């Protein structure tokens, strides 16, 4: 396979695999990411798929995409615009043409560009002409007929043959990026160990694509991306849902506790339940409840009985759980509620991402009902914030809501595997059996957390529940007692601020503009700010992971900037929260509600506009 000298080195590149939801694009993208990671590139991925498992074939609504951004420096986002688009049908071009960089490469299966498919995608003629892609590097490969030819002697049914089309396309991309096929080949050997003929067919299709790309040379120049400069250690690829599940396992191990998860399947949160259900080897008790309410109520029961209790959901499920979260507030039991946010309201856009559950998490309950709210900001740091959510719940005897989102849940990135011995222990506050009678609402003077008495412990028998109580645990409707307890519960949550890190500024400590984000938008914001800084703008950024309470230096950080621009994927929920907590600052908003993450470009444009208005 002698390659010619036309090799181009690039810092980073964005590739988008796109096809019908049955075309196997998620797998193709994942296999490519794994190979890139093993090659040493840093990367971030973004799967983008339709809510319907099988939307009408060939239509734009049924297009499933998987975007990979890889490079030799730190990669913070899945990238805005694609350098390379792989389109398995005309609808994939229709859905993605605008997201390809000027002059980028588009590989498509020309066998699939039949009159019928063009019509389904909404084209009347040649998509290349209609989308004005003539100046792009267009590679019209006869993928369908090539795999048919390559596999004609395999004796496979036509369906199985066509299922390898994605591997042909992947082979072409591997050649384009000068990647070895062996990791993907090993994957097939393992996955189809029981069906060697299928493994072989996929490998043949993969190689056929690779050689085809080499032969036609239409793809040249070959793009080389050097391995990234990343910290030494052992790495793996991880997505946000798996990282969240593992963060809870880490917390359970560090607290020396059993873990219980009670959940009801809901997109895009189900992966956490699935991962924990598979971890019976680590003693996880997973319970697929009959509904969202039973999910949290079973978890609350498990918490009462002394387990680290978790429930996972998305926006609509969080709404259903709100009464039980109030019960957790009142009973002062530790529990973590994960909300993997998706586009809302109502059923909304189940497979798309949004950050619009923030106010629901903060305030969506009856009565004065404060809870701790955290948000993760990258797929891998879901591990850290799941651990943190559990730590705070256990040490402060409070419900904690952890917000992630669809983009974090399904996106993945390489993650340096931590050693468990480097993760701090968690110390739950168990009740002391020497203090009898036990008073359930007696508090730790420092944190104001009550003590946890586990059923089965002799002498600590007690009753708690949703009715207001006195310190001794007696039901009470007395006005002063109620106000006292309301204040205790609020102050307990506020005091968590003493046990969380301060917010860190990326950029100068003071300046014209501070971009303030939270949770999953971090990568886009940081990338935009770094580019703005390189261009000479006085812009800094903070990205919040601790939402309630806020880090204790927040106000002093804000006070050093002329304007705070709050960027989030909603109409301004965090901005309105900040305005209510710190009313004295000048706030601007950068908002987007399209079910998609920000792009770096749009953040930059908005920041420049704000700066020019200063």
């Amino acid at each position, binding site marked *: 396979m002698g390659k010619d000298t036309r090799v181009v080195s690039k810092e980073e590149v964005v590739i988008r695999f796109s096809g019908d939801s049955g075309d196997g694009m998620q797998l193709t993208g994942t296999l490519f990411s794994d190979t890139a990671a093993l090659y040493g590139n840093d990367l971030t991925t973004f799967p983008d798929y339709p809510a319907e498992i099988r939307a009408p074939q060939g239509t734009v609504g049924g297009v499933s995409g998987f975007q990979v951004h890889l490079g030799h420096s730190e990669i913070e986002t899945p990238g805005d615009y694609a350098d390379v688009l792989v389109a398995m049908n005309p609808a994939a071009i229709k859905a993605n043409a605008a997201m390809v960089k000027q002059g980028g490469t588009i590989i498509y299966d020309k066998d699939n560009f039949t009159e019928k498919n063009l019509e389904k995608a909404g084209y009347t003629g040649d998509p290349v002409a209609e989308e004005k892609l003539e100046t792009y590097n267009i590679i019209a490969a006869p993928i369908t007929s090539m795999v048919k030819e390559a596999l004609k002697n395999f004796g496979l049914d036509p369906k199985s043959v066509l299922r390898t089309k994605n591997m042909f396309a992947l082979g072409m991309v591997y050649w384009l990026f000068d990647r070895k096929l062996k990791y993907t080949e090993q994957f097939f050997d393992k996955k189809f160990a029981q069906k060697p003929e299928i493994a072989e067919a996929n490998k043949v299709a993969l190689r056929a694509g690779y050689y085809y790309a080499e032969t036609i040379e239409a793809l040249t120049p070959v793009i080389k991306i050097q391995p990234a400069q990343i910290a*030494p250690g052992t790495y793996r690829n991880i997505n946000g849902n798996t990282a969240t599940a593992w963060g809870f396992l880490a917390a359970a191990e560090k607290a020396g506790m059993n873990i219980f998860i009670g959940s009801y399947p809901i997109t895009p949160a189900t992966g956490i339940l699935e991962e924990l259900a598979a971890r019976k080897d680590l003693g996880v008790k997973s319970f697929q409840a009959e509904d969202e309410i039973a999910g949290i109520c079973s978890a609350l029961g*498990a918490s009462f009985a002394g387990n680290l209790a978790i429930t996972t959901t998305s926006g609509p499920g969080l709404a259903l759980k709100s009464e*039980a979260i109030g019960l957790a507030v009142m009973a002062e039991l530790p529990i973590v509620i994960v909300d993997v946010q998706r586009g809302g309201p109502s059923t909304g856009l189940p497979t798309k991402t949004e950050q619009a559950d923030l106010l629901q998490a903060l305030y969506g309950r009856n009565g004065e009902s404060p809870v701790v709210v955290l948000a993760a900001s990258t797929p891998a740091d879901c591990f850290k914030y799941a651990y943190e959510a559990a730590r705070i719940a256990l040490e402060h005897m409070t419900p904690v809501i952890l917000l992630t989102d669809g983009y974090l849940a399904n996106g993945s990135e390489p993650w340096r595997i931590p050693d468990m011995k480097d993760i701090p222990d968690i110390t739950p506050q168990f009740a002391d059996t020497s203090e009898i009678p036990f008073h359930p609402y007696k508090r730790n003077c420092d944190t104001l957390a009550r003590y946890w008495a586990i059923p089965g412990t002799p002498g600590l028998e007690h009753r708690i529940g949703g009715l207001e109580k006195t310190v001794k645990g007696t039901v009470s409707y007395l006005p002063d007692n109620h106000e006292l307890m309301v204040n205790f519960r609020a102050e307990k949550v506020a005091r968590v601020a003493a046990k969380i890190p301060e917010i860190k500024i990326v950029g100068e400590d003071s300046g014209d503009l501070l971009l303030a984000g939270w949770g999953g938008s971090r990568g886009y914001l940081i990338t935009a700010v770094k580019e703005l800084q390189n261009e000479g703008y006085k812009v800094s950024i903070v990205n919040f992971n601790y939402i309630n309470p806020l880090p204790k230096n927040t106000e002093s950080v804000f006070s050093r900037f002329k304007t705070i621009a709050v960027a989030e994927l909603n109409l301004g929920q965090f901005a309105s929260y900040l305005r209510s907590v710190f009313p004295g600052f000048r706030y601007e908003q950068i908002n987007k509600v399209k079910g998609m993450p920000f792009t770096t470009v749009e953040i930059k444009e908005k920041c420049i506009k704000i700066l020019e208005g200063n």
Partner: protein
Amino acid sequence: MTELQTYQYTPKDFKSDQEVRWCPGCGDHAVLNAVQKALSELGIPREKFVFISGIGCSSRFPYYMNTYGFHGIHGRASAIATGVKIANPELSVWQITGDGDALAIGGNHFIHAVRRNIDVNIILFNNEIYGLTKGQYSPTSEKGLVTKTSPFGTIEEPFSVGELVVGAKGRFFARTVDANVTLSTQIYIQAAKHKGTSVIEVLQNCVIFNDGIHDTVTNKDFRDDRTITLKHGEPMIFGKENDKGLILEGLKLKVVKIGENDITRKDILVHDASEPNPGLHYMLANMRYPNYPVALGVIRSVEGNTYDNDLTEQINNIRKDSKIKCLNDLLNSGSTWKVK
């Protein structure tokens, strides 16, 4: 067996320091007494008992028990109790609920707890009315009942608790009357010993909003003729004179008089609570006055796998065989690579 500790309790050991606040004359008082009596006889250490409730008059119950207790939210006690039992299968978990709490707002959780056969004892206080909200009809109110929300009579068919339990694949169903502390105590003890979900329907009287609703069958003057107390292995005989019994005629139960039409004691059905086929239990649970006597006692008690036990077993088996013993093992499993 010298290590076996015996626990000597009296019912008083299970009374909490809280003043009982049910209305004077309410059937709940008698249920509380019977439960405290049963618990004192079970030989289980007090700290192992957990009482979980939802919302409603009966759901105040845990406050009056000197055990662990969790007063939950409306309808969700089955789900909370499920979590408690799964988290710690060593506990003796009791759910206190009512006809509204278990069968209206909590209907979903109730049937699924029964279906899963979680080892929880569910005492369902059935007074066929909403008491705490002051007198609205419930899912067990007889059709036509006039209440504040059915001023012209309900137009809904009521649930039958036993029918629902059998339909949800329940394996233990018993019925008792609030005032019958002796029978109730026996039933609670049997329910506690049964592995799996036990549902005990208590015909309970609300003195304020539905007074006397069960009187037709529970009144002293005629209860012997209008109820039958079923005992496993004994013939289904009832009546003040012990002269009435149940037989099968075709596919239906029939009340007969011993000594009439050549009927002798040996023609009478013998109660087998352990029969897995629920057909006869279903008919017994559904008997209504005046065509039949209302069945009391343990109607169905069939052994089977419990959710909590199967889960523990599954975890133990998987742990034995898995290479992943701690989180470091998991973190480093699968595809990883080193960067130097």
